[in-house]
């Protein structure tokens, strides 16, 4: 059966359908697009050409379980996120305070953090900060149980736009929390 359309027209129609469809288009859909006057092989060739045409652009033609679709490349997500008005999530108070203690008093153990906060620090809080790559274990304190000592990382400084810890806002006017805690850790294992 002769197809009235030229192959260039067919490609444009194919591309337009992919752009217009909210869901991936299977081979069956694409055949219907051409009233079944275009064979599966011809359609596949056109899809290959389209994939080639789109290379080097912000979206790509991919084949997923239910068919073909144009989707934006992950590399452009950072730009698309700027458009998204939704507020980025914030860390809980527990996470923020724990991070503040580690940042300003490093190296500290979980026990140190708990003494300052006055409540237990859940493993989840430390895991969250470790997963983000902002804190790491830099050693153990040589006391019973050999608790891990936490410090902030290079990534933490990079992510907050700081060159060094010295650039953290100073706490000059803040009442110290550690005056006795510092002593506490010193005297935890008296001679």
């Amino acid at each position: 059966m002769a197809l009235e359309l030229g192959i260039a027209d067919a490609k444009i129609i194919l591309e337009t359908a992919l752009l217009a469809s909210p869901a991936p288009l299977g081979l069956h859909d694409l055949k219907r697009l051409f009233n079944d006057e275009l064979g599966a092989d011809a359609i596949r060739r056109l899809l290959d050409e389209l994939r080639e045409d789109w290379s080097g652009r912000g979206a790509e033609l991919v084949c997923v379980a239910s068919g073909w679709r144009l989707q934006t490349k992950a590399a452009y997500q950072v730009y698309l996120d700027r458009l998204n008005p939704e507020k980025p999530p914030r860390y809980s108070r527990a996470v923020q305070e724990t991070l503040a203690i580690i940042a300003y008093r490093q190296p500290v153990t979980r026990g140190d953090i708990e003494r300052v906060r006055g409540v237990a620090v859940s493993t989840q809080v430390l895991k969250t900060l470790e997963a983000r790559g902002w804190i790491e274990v830099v050693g153990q304190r040589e006391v019973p149980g050999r608790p891990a000592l936490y410090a902030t990382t290079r990534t933490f400084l990079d992510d907050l736009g700081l060159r060094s810890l010295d650039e953290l806002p100073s706490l000059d006017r803040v009442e110290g929390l550690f005056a006795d805690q510092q002593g506490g850790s010193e005297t935890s294992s008296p001679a």
Partner: protein
Amino acid sequence: MPRDLYIPPDALAVILEAFEGPLDLLLYLIRRHNLDVLDIPMAEVTRQYMAYVEMMRASRLELAAEYLLMAALLIEIKSRMLLPRRGDPEAAEAPDPRAELVRRLLEYERMKQASWQLAGLPQIDRDFGRARAWVEETARQRLPQLEPADLVRAWMELASRASVTRHHRVTREELSVRSHMARILRRLKAHRLVEFGELLDGLFDVRVLVVSFLALLELVRERLVEISQQAPFAPIYVGLASQGHPDGA
């Protein structure tokens, strides 16, 4: 009288279907027959309208009332047009009784045309669609944001909650010591034992050297590192505090 004005009773459903109401019907009649509103045989129209009203009363009472109102309006206009005009100038100023109906008919006709024009405009999802690419939602897990100021705020919170209110100045210098403590620990974690000089190697700034030295002393004081020297003038080694610390018990 135009044939259209006489609507057989069984055509009532058609009328209701075809016209949006008495104004619509009147407009049709006027346009169709090029009628002047004055030329409408009022008695005939009214009789007809009343017949519809009678039939509509059962099913479409509201609409019946509207047709009735229109019939009344037409009669009123007709009668006012027939009244002899008095010679005084004020009467000449009186509005044409048809004016209000004319205004309404014109406005309705204009809006009908506007509705056709609007319906004719290309419409999304009917005549064209959005051109979109799929955005992989899983690709956009957003990480929480944090500013240095948030840390200060968190610290303030802690301070205000803390029962200990002893004044203590956390200075930049002290902070530096802390950060170098972490740096040294990190280094020792990787190498276990580092020669003292090597630990301070590459630190050209005297202030940094001093702070690093203070950090080392602080680490010793906190029993986090051990310093050893086999003999006088032998290399000094810095290492993490030995695991089986005797004081541990």
